């Protein structure tokens, strides 16, 4: 049940997907890996939309060079843990939801445990090794992985439903070399919004998900396009999984 305050807060979106939809969001738990460029807009919009429980994980402290894009963190937060900064801002944005901020480096030993019983994983990471780890956990738990990646004015996103769609390793079997990548804040803004929209649609069970398609955004050309992607039967991560038909959150 919702308080009067919540009903007012969500009034304009309840017009779109009803109180039942809002209830589904409230009962949901989304895990966001990273409180940086992508994690900032994704967590902000999922928080204000009323996703009931948000776990956000990061191991870094706020650096001045983060501030051109990581809009969860303010100038006054420099030197502070990103998780502390994120928790404070998200809770202020929406006091009616639960925020778990975990200050840890996601690795093989803890990933499954910290993701717990989340309904979905948002990939807001900045490196492929950790992304592959999230991909493995998504496959093991059979929960979706909402992938996003950015560089400069350029970004990509796709929604991975294990057993149904290609997984991250089917699409990108090998990691690119790590680098200090250029990035303009608007790009994670756009890609983060694609990811957050996907999360909401998945949780609500509405619309067409970005499945089997890699969304590609070229901000310089103001051009979006998509590339069809397919499962790799020999994929080392998901190759053994039987095909499933359900691409919706269980009611």
């Amino acid at each position, binding site marked *: 049940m919702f308080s009067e305050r919540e009903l007012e807060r969500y009034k304009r979106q309840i017009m779109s997907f009803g109180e039942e939809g809002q209830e589904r969001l409230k009962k949901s738990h989304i895990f966001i890996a990273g409180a940086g*460029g992508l994690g900032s807009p994704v967590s902000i919009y999922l928080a204000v939309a009323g996703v009931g429980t948000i776990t956000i994980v990061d191991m870094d402290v706020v650096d001045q060079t983060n501030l051109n894009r990581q809009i969860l963190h303010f100038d006054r937060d420099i030197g502070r843990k990103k998780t502390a900064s994120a928790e404070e801002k998200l809770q202020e944005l929406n006091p009616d939801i639960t925020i778990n901020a975990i200050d840890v480096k996601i690795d093989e030993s803890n990933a499954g445990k910290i993701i717990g019983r989340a309904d979905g994983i948002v990939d807001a990471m900045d490196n492929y090794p950790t992304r592959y780890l999230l991909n493995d956990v998504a496959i093991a738990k059979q929960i979706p992985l909402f992938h996003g*990646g950015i560089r400069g004015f350029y970004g990509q996103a796709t929604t991975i439903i294990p057993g149904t769609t290609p997984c991250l390793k089917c699409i990108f079997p090998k990691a*690119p070399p790590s680098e200090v*990548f250029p990035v303009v804040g608007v790009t*994670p803004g756009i890609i983060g919004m694609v990811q957050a929209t996907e999360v909401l649609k998945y949780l609500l069970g509405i619309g067409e998900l970005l499945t089997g398609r890699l969304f*590609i955004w070229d901000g310089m050309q103001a051009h979006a396009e998509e590339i069809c*992607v397919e499962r790799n039967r020999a994929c080392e991560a998901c190759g053994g999984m039987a095909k499933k038909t359900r691409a919706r959150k269980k009611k």
Partner: protein
Amino acid sequence: MRWYGKENTCEEEEVMVKIRFFARFRELLGTDIMTDVVAGTMFTPLITTIAKKNPEGYAAIFDENGAFHEFVILMKNGKRIEIADAAKTMVVDGDEIAVFPPVAGG
């Protein structure tokens, strides 16, 4: 010297293909490159020739041995081409070829 007369026999048959680079590759090499190639040209030499127009672009896609970097994604008309098969995959008239890197930032 080329002979453009009726009895032209020295011109080889050419096919037109379109090459699309993405992300970093696009910054370095441009995109939507329409090019005529000799019929029977394979995927790898075609991309090699185009990429060589910019040494930095070439180095982004190929290693020092002239092989594709293992992370490079190749597609032909929306279908994945494995790097291992690229040297023996022929391009045909009207092919649309996509070459892109995984984008890693967050």
